[in-house]
């Protein structure tokens, strides 16, 4: 599993940093998303799905590993 965060699309609402502060931060400059861990444990999938659903601009995506 891999996470991507598009800073161009990001509107700095900070939902990700609020929900999963160990995985996401915001830049001091303009508050846009800073990815702290692009390959978190698969156990975090539920939290990541919430981040994706609550990101107001769809800047964050999860690329799940293809099933065998």
């Amino acid at each position, binding site marked *: 599993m891999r996470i991507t965060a598009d800073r161009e699309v990001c509107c*700095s*609402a900070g939902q990700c940093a609020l929900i999963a502060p160990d995985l996401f931060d*915001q830049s001091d*400059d*303009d*508050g846009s998303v800073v990815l702290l861990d692009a390959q978190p444990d698969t156990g975090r999938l539920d939290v990541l799905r919430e981040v994706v659903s609550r990101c*107001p601009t769809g800047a964050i995506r999860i690329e799940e590993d293809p099933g065998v």
Partner: protein
Amino acid sequence: MVDALHPPVPLPTKRSHPFNPPDGYSPLRERERITRMSYPDGSSGWLITRHAEAKELLTHKSFSARQEGLVAPVPTELQYDGVAADPGAFAKTDDPIHGQYRKLLTGFFTVRRTRQLAPMIERIVHEQLDDLEKAGPGADLVEVFTDSVPSRVMCEMIGVPESERKTLQRHVETLGRLSSTVPEALAAVSGMSGFLARFIPVKMADPRDDLLGDLIRGGQLNEQELMGMAATLISGAFDTTGNMLAMGVFTLLEHPDQLARLREDQELMGAAVEELLRFLTISHLGAGRWALEDVEFAGQAIKKGEVVTVALPAVNRDPERYDNADQLDIGRTDHGHLALGHGVHQCLGQHLARTILRVGYEALFDRFPTLRLAVPSDEVPMRDDFVHYGPSSLPVTWDD
């Protein structure tokens, strides 16, 4: 595929209970994905009461937030829509202009930066609670505490002197009251812009170590834009968080089981704040957008120029989205509410508001463990005719 249409309805605004959205929403939400709505200027537009459709609309590229295309959803003499927004007043603009202005501010309102403001917020909260103590049982919590805290915090952040605060607060109140007359609104607008016309040049000549000082040193905004931005910050911060603070206290006092849970386990505070935001959703009139082009949405053909009102209070009680949607449950973990909007316009100050609410509720219930209403709950006067909903006064008492 276009669904059959019912005749247009006006925006429901009558509430039979202060903690619940206007009664007229649920039958519409049950009935259809999008409702034909009649606007007071005689035009027909649309109303959204469901969560999924609200989220989709607020991120849809065919809809604009630009002020010049919006129409007031309820009868009012206030002219807050229909003309282009002032330079720097970015809330009712679209990208790229909206984003260019907003990006200059977002760094000040991150989760981390706003949490760092907690000591300043705690100081202000405790000073206002000292005043509450001095005022004694029977005091009005709105006047002494909930209206004062958020306005003091924003004034401190942008360097507005305390001596100006109450006057500004009155102007914001007048401009948020739907029943304000044209002369009242004009007086408030000129009071506000008169203040900014004095205040901004002084700040530009001597930029201090605060948010406005940083913006001025950044050198990207002219005097007019700084005025528009300061006005946006003031009007965005004052009555929004104030009403939410007051509504949260009122609601918790009327839900003693939930308040007891919160007292027992302060770890619940973060979730409690989210649940209160969802349950109460003080944005009385919701969010407005208008179609930039003919577009099919939620099974209907929306015509270019038609206005859509997203009824945020109804959306956050959608039973399709939430189990027991009409129940206050401070332990709820399924948030994702739209109380602060969605899409690129989602509330800029949301994390500041969260910090103020958390610190405010904690300190109030900690220092006044026997706090209760001083009047029967059905006698609490509500701001029924305001853009943001909340009690206009909340008389409280406690054991000395």
